[in-house]
């Protein structure tokens, strides 16, 4: 029989673990109860439902090699995200997806990869980082630039610790507003791009962060002569359906849900409303 399911019907999933990452973010692992394996591409997202409240698009943060559960790092921003923060292990939610395209993993093979994550931008990048670490030999240099406003907002501290231990990862962490205990770097993340020695043609920059970050990151990356095709950014837009119908996430001629959420700069530069 042909699939008669509505586009909008989520699968029921269960929260199997909850971890408070920061004051605003929690990390949830959810499973579709063994009904199906959950395969996805790093950079893809799901539509997460808390029934009675609504749906919100959330990037997948976990490793694509873990097919049993999906990891979602969720910031408490509004109705759905607040509602899920109240849920505990065992609670049921709905998910639709994976949606969107994710990063062009195959194309990235053999390349140097510069991850630039601002704030919550680490959430989708973490999935890609996990992928790269799993297949470490397939990639060249790995540089992770990660910045948040304050030290308290740093996500996935244990991952950061792990990555720091790995020798062939260059990890740069910075905060804008250090507190008295902070001993690391300070300043906006884009400040650390100029000092990097990059091989432009062989480097891909994967950039995810708040809208303001993109403008500055771009300037610096162009300064470094990274080709426009190699700068990949993930965009956030209001999104209702996630499948290219509702019109909310449209940026000029493209849909973030269908054509993104990751875009190359050489596409974005023609979209007047993108950045």
């Amino acid at each position, binding site marked *: 029989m042909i699939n008669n399911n509505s586009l909008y019907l989520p699968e029921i999933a269960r929260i199997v673990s909850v971890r408070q990452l920061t004051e605003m973010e929690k990390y949830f692992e959810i499973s579709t109860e063994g009904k199906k394996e959950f395969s996805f591409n790093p950079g893809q997202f799901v539509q997460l439902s808390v029934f*009675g409240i609504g749906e919100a698009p959330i990037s997948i943060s976990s490793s694509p090699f873990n097919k049993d559960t999906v990891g979602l790092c969720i910031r408490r921003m509004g109705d759905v995200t607040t509602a899920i923060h109240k849920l505990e292990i065992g609670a049921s939610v709905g998910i639709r997806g994976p949606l969107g395209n994710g990063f062009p993993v195959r194309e990235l093979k053999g390349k140097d990869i510069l991850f630039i994550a601002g704030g919550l931008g680490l959430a989708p990048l973490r999935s890609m980082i996990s992928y790269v670490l799993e297949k470490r030999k397939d990639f060249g240099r790995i540089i992770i630039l990660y910045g948040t406003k304050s030290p308290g907002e740093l996500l996935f501290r244990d991952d950061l610790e792990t990555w720091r231990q790995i020798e062939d990862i260059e990890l740069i962490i910075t905060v804008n507003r250090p507190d008295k205990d902070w001993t690391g770097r300070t300043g906006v993340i884009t400040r650390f791009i100029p000092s990097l020695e990059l091989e432009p043609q062989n480097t891909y920059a994967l950039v995810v962060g708040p*809208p303001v970050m993109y403008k500055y990151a771009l300037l610096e990356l162009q300064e470094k002569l990274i080709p426009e095709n190699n700068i990949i950014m993930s965009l*956030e837009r209001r999104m209702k359906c996630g499948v290219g119908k509702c019109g909310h996430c449209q940026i*000029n001629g493209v849909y973030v849900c269908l054509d993104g959420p990751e875009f190359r700069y050489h596409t974005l530069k023609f979209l*007047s409303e993108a950045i």
Partner: protein
Amino acid sequence: MRVLIDKKDIGFFFESLKEENTVYGVKQKEPGFYVFDEAETFSDPLDKYTPTLLPPKKYLFPQKETLLKFSTTPSLKVKQLIEFKKQVIFGVRPCDIHGIKLLDKVFTTDHEDKNYTQKRANTIIIGIDCMKPCYKYAYCESVGCLDVEDGFDVLLTDMGDCFYALIGTAQGEAIIRKNARFINANKSDDEKIKCMKEERRGLFENKFATDISNLPLLFKNADNDPVWDELNDRCLGCGRCNIVCPTCYCFDVFDCVDLNMSSGERCRQWDACTLKDFAVVATGENFRSTRGQRLRHRFNRKFNYLMTKHNTSFCVGCGRCSRSCPVKIDVVETVNAVVNNRKTK
């Protein structure tokens, strides 16, 4: 196949369709204003009516519809809802047939939206051809929507004492055979129709200053056109142009719990890209914060973005938005302003 149905038999055809379908026909609401509504008996404003207040899209993609039903206690249960019934929309103008064809495209391209397609599959469309401009706002000819070749089951053309019925689908043929009294049309009828169609060309004075195929490129380069500033000052951001449009299909999705606070539904409702918070994200950014930007987006959807994606104009020239706009922002005027401003550059 094409047949002739005597005018006095059209009521019979109409009534007979009601036996197995819900039949929607055109009703006059007040002089000069028409709506599609469930028809009690066949009344005949077919030849007079101007585009209905809302397009027939409302029967395929209703103002508000339930997508899911859920209950959260004792354990979470979610059920999809895809509602449809056998229905006939009787008396659809070519522009609206084109409108439905465009919706067919958007609701099947990339992913199939069953809430739409199931309704569509159960809908019979009886068109009525236009022989002259229905009102001053129409410019269907400019956007290539005066002629319609498919998208209907039957297309009626008024030949004076009878209707020439062009059959577009097997389903159309079946209902004609089953529900209508008719005789077969002959060559001379075909000729006559051809002539009539020829004669109506060029009657539309309301038209674009350039060929429709030039618009995507012109609009692409018109982001900073002064016309958007002028419209920014005039547009009220009221959203009427979106609501009345046969090709607007943006929607909002929301949950609604019952008063028991455990069961409820997820609904979708028409949304409008001219409204202020259409593109606001959770962090508060608004990617189209001015009315001018939002209107530019709307025009670009019609003549650039969607036109490029689907390779056909996403405006069918019905003129509803120009008529409805309280401050009379007119599509033809706006398009022509963009065209002229490009020319002078």
